[in-house]
């Protein structure tokens, strides 16, 4: 082994993409003419060469074992010539070039049980998410568990095309937002609500005090001597629980069973289709952590999806809908309470105030 390590290679980069492509993809590269979604989860792409590929999109838990991955590989070997892919939202796609394999593959997937078809077209597709309590050090919530609970409830929207448009849900377990939830139709965000608790006895050893102070966006942290320890003090009035100090300094944890929980955001989008991309806006500032199935979060999201589904026009994304009806109506129709937390007080706050007499009652 020592030898292997000694001779290790570096900077070789990833395998080249086309090595991972089935023949039909190579052959029709750049020649696709159009696609059609035959049923939820089943796409066909037609090439100008006359070739066709069928893609079967299956839900995947992005947190998975090598065992599950091996199962996927086996199916790919059996039907897809040893090729498959993951989508940008962590779904699995089996790709076949032979229509006769379509039904057998569907059957194999149904038999597997852990690879339901769906996520195409006007659906709720897989939730993009982050590590949560499974790996990260700063989360306010779990990730995989919340995702599972929400998708169980929205499953009906995953394997159907009955929404006005696609609804993209994302989750990030802290304000670092590794899930980039700032532009999703619905975002689930882990939030802390208590200032860091400070371990004065160890802070100076574990952290660089100047960097820690500089890390705070609101300048809430000041140097302080506590019980003869060189440490810092946090002005709780200025803290907005971003956790940036903890990123810099392990002696300032924020996590707290009573403080932490979920904020829900709505109306973001990334695509440039119709409207320009939009940020997600605050819907619910705080829902307590309710493991294992987070019922309040699940119910609230379901409610938002249903109100949207019933009220929006065809092709209208959640944010386009809220903008058209007005946010005052969004709160009225969803029954979500509006509070002072919804009123922006950050850098561009003034640009969100209503500088008009135009509003709905």
């Amino acid at each position, binding site marked *: 082994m020592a030898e*292997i390590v000694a001779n*290790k290679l570096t*900077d*070789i*980069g*990833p*395998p*080249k*993409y086309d090595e*991972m492509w089935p023949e039909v993809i190579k052959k029709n590269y750049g020649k*696709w003419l*159009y*696609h*059609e979604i*035959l049923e939820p989860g089943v796409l066909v792409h037609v090439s100008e060469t006359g070739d066709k590929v069928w893609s079967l999109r299956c839900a*995947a*838990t992005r*947190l*998975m074992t*090598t*065992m599950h*991955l*091996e199962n996927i590989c*086996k199916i790919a070997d059996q039907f897809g010539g*040893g*090729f498959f*892919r993951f989508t*940008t939202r*962590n779904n699995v796609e089996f790709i076949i070039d032979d229509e006769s394999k379509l039904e057998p593959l569907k059957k194999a997937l149904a038999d597997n049980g*852990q690879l*339901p078809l769906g996520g195409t*077209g*006007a659906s709720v597709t897989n939730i993009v998410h*982050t590590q949560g*309590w499974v790996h*990260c*050090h700063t989360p306010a919530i779990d990730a995989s*568990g919340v995702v599972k*609970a929400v*998708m*169980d409830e929205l*499953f009906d929207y995953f394997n159907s*095309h009955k929404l006005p448009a*696609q609804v993209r849900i994302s989750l990030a377990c802290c*304000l*670092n937002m590794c899930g980039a939830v*700032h532009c999703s139709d619905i975002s689930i965000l882990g939030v802390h609500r208590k200032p860091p608790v400070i371990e004065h006895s160890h802070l100076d050893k574990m952290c660089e005090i100047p960097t820690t102070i500089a890390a705070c*966006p609101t300048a809430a942290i000041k140097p302080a001597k506590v019980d003869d320890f060189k440490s810092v003090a946090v002005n709780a009035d200025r803290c907005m629980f*971003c956790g*940036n100090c903890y990123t810099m300094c*392990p002696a300032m944890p924020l*996590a707290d*069973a009573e403080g932490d929980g979920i904020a829900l955001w709505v109306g973001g989008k*990334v695509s440039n*289709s*119709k409207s320009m*991309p939009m940020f997600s806006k605050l819907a619910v500032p705080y829902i307590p952590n309710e*493991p*294992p199935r987070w019922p309040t979060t699940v119910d609230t999201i379901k409610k938002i999806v249903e109100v949207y589904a019933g009220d929006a026009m065809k092709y209208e994304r959640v944010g386009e809908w809220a903008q058209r009806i007005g946010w005052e109506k969004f709160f009225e129709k969803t029954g979500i309470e509006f509070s002072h937390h919804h009123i922006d007080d950050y*850098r561009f706050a003034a640009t969100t105030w209503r500088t008009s007499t135009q509003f709905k009652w």
Partner: protein
Amino acid sequence: MAKLHDTPMLDELEKGPWPSFVTDIKKLAEAGNEPCADLLGQLELSYKDKEGHWKHGGIVGVLGYGGGVIGRYSDVPELFPGVEHFHTLRVNQPASKFYKTERLREVTEIWDRRGSGMLNMHGSTGDMVLLGAFTEELEPIFAELTQKGWDLGGSGSALRTPSCCVGKARCEYACIDTQDICYNLTMEFQDEMHRPAWPYKFKFKVDGCPNCCVASLARSDCAIIGTWRDDIRIDQEKVAAYVAGDIAANGGGHGLDDKVDIKADVIDLCPTGCMFYEDGKLTINNAECTRCMHCINVMPQALRPGLDKGASILIGAKAPILDGAQMGSLIIPFIKMEEPYDEFKEFVEKMWDWWDENGKNRERIGECIQRLGLSAFIEACDLDPIPQMVKEPRSNPYIFYKEDEVPGGFERDISDYRKKHAR
């Protein structure tokens, strides 16, 4: 043999139609995988405590690289020794995440042998994330991976693993070679990826068209988004077929029996109002079209992007830490993206030089532009200011001038002034 913990709360997550990660992990634990067993145990404890149980990551890594590994230790290691160390390795995924099973098994085989057997397929940036290794295994894993032709991705204040949408490999909308661009940049900037030397992280994402299926516009410091500058191609026969209801709307996205209402679904929803349908003929005033993709999305068989293709470059997207989230801002409306992408790379070098010189510690390029001004940035990149860069011109009157822009310069003599104007 792994000790299996009681997980009454997690067991609740085995119910329901969505695939269950708990069931999956349990199976591997039951097969004797100790990290998996202890991962479930510690996760159950977190569910009970409503607090995570990982320590702040220590500095671990592999020799020669400054990134690619995230350190992680349990804060209850005596209870869950199998996850006492639980470091992740970010393995650079193949562009757009196609896999040949044979090659993927090279990775899982190593991982089964030396790691926890847990993965994220994929991390938010796009890497295959190998989740949970002990410190002593890191070097061997890395060495074995590279022997097999796999490398680590980025972490820290470095270039992060670029990623891209499926593009021309299986999408009719793609205007650029997303995989090749992604791969080419990854290879070109290996050093920047593995040896953090910047103020903060930097991400590339490549989308084949403005639909942005890899969310480049929201999630990458540099978004490369395919577009075109000639006319949308129209197949009038297919338009007629859509209108007649012979082809499902939106590629079947609302069901195969869903028909196009050309007025309500297309003409009226075109954001620029540049489409007209008269006497069975669809016309587009392409000069007014902003290439939003909507009409093409609704009628993919009738409409196609133009033929003069390239990319729009948007800079600065990021999550909210510290100054609030940003989306990418349009810096280059159109650039041809042809191998070896020299023109684009020249721009990248200029951009990085500027950021390197001006960026503060932990300041993303987008924040740096916010602090120093879009004008300063585009000047550094040798670009001319054009109205396409903004949604609207400034509305405040606080216009800066440089001394050489003003006749007579800034130096004035108060006595000259007083000659005309008594005190």
